[in-house]
């Protein structure tokens, strides 16, 4: 099972555990209709698009409403801590939520008890929490952007807002190899990293394994959710059995191709990019391979 966990931006939505399905332009989970764009919903939508194309089980999700107070986030942490053993996912992808370091530590301890242990993917504040609490190297995949790789490289930072100023000032595409090396040196990186940016870099502790440079669509950086779709596709591909390095390459490449299908501007909405994904899958992926 692929299990995705994260918050949705509604104050009054309770904790929901169920299978993701498409309901027109919305996501439908356990009878609740949820907008498919933004944050964890964008990640689920991209993962669902991929599982539908590959004809494999759709993602199961644990979501709750949270607009910043952390109440929904803590419901998700607690649900996972209490139910992970019975759910026993093969891939666990953690996403937007309040970075509660104590609960992250406790969740990680529960993951370690599972046999087989699931593949662990973290993006957004789940990645911040995993790094801040010193558990980064126990994760299989992080998908940081440029500012976030600087955060992972800063041994003491607990959030990207408080990273070393000089590290941030010096971070550009040329400094990525050094930032990746520093992140691994400081135990701030997962087993694999996908650093998203002008070029996307896939790396492990030995350095950069691959880069994806085109098509170059700089407008994608403006669009909220374009990082989330990469993480969603990557989670689904790993769940399908693809090795992590290839899953990361294909996800990053697919996102760029989706940006290139039609005219993409800084005002393009993530829902439009998600809608283009199946067309890219058809040209890039053979579901029988």
């Amino acid at each position, binding site marked *: 099972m692929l299990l995705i966990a994260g918050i949705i*931006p509604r104050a009054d939505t309770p904790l929901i555990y169920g299978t993701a399905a498409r309901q027109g332009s919305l996501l439908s989970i356990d009878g609740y209709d949820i907008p498919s764009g933004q944050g964890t919903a964008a990640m689920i939508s991209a993962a669902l698009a991929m599982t539908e194309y590959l004809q494999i089980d759709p993602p199961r999700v644990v979501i709750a409403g949270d607009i910043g107070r952390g109440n929904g986030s803590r419901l998700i942490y*607690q649900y996972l801590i*209490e139910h992970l053993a019975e759910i026993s996912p093969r891939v666990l992808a953690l996403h937007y*939520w309040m*970075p509660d370091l104590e609960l992250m530590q406790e969740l990680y301890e529960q993951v370690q008890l599972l046999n087989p242990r699931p593949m662990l993917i973290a*993006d957004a504040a789940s990645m911040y929490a995993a790094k801040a609490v010193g558990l980064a190297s126990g994760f299989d995949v992080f998908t940081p952007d440029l500012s976030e790789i600087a955060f992972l490289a800063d041994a003491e930072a*607990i*959030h*990207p807002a408080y990273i070393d*100023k000089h590290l941030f000032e010096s971070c550009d595409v040329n400094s990525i190899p050094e930032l990746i090396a520093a992140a691994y040196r400081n135990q701030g990186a997962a087993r694999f990293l996908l650093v998203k940016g002008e070029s996307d870099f896939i790396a492990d502790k030995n350095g950069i394994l691959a880069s994806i440079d085109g098509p170059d669509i700089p407008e994608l950086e403006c669009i909220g959710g374009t990082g989330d779709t990469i993480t969603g596709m990557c989670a689904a591909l790993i769940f399908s059995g693809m090795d992590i390095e290839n899953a990361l390459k294909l996800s990053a490449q697919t996102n760029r191709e989706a940006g290139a299908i039609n005219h993409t501007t800084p005002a393009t909405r993530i829902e439009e990019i998600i809608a283009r994904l199946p067309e890219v899958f058809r040209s890039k992926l053979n579901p029988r391979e």
Partner: protein
Amino acid sequence: MFWPKKKNRKALRNKSEAKQGKGLVLFDTVEEAIKAEKLVTKAGYECCLVAPPPSLRKGCDVAVEINLVEQPAIERTLQPVSYNEVVPLAGSAQLLDIVQVFEFPEHIMVKAGNMKLTFETQSGIIVNTSGGGCPDIPYLHIEMMGKHLDEIPRPRDIGHTLCALMLDRAVEGAREIWAEGGTV
């Protein structure tokens, strides 16, 4: 609906090996610190009174320890009291204040730390926000999309987390550009 079993947060806290993720609110007087601790607790945020380490001490020898990621919401709660500053217990003592600007033919993207805000240069309308990872960011995105830079509530006023504070800096940068005619 799922209701979690009651957890003993104190027990969890004891398992924490370090003060990871914590910040300190520093005060001139013990009275202000005690008043602040009561306000923050009443508002529903976790906090406690502590003695700040010598390297961070400014003013009195009592501080309020908070979850640093909730800094903007806690600073709002602290408006009735006088405090010196909020500092992280580890890492850089300064919030990032670097704003970067990227131009597109009809839009400008303003980047502050891990947050980005893009507006249309002709109209001042916000067309996208991206980046970040805290739980108020998707909510703030919805609140700001399609609205004019001058008409939105400030993320620092309705957000709760450090990501919201970074987004606020991007809004501030964008408003400055807009006020100067929408050109860099």
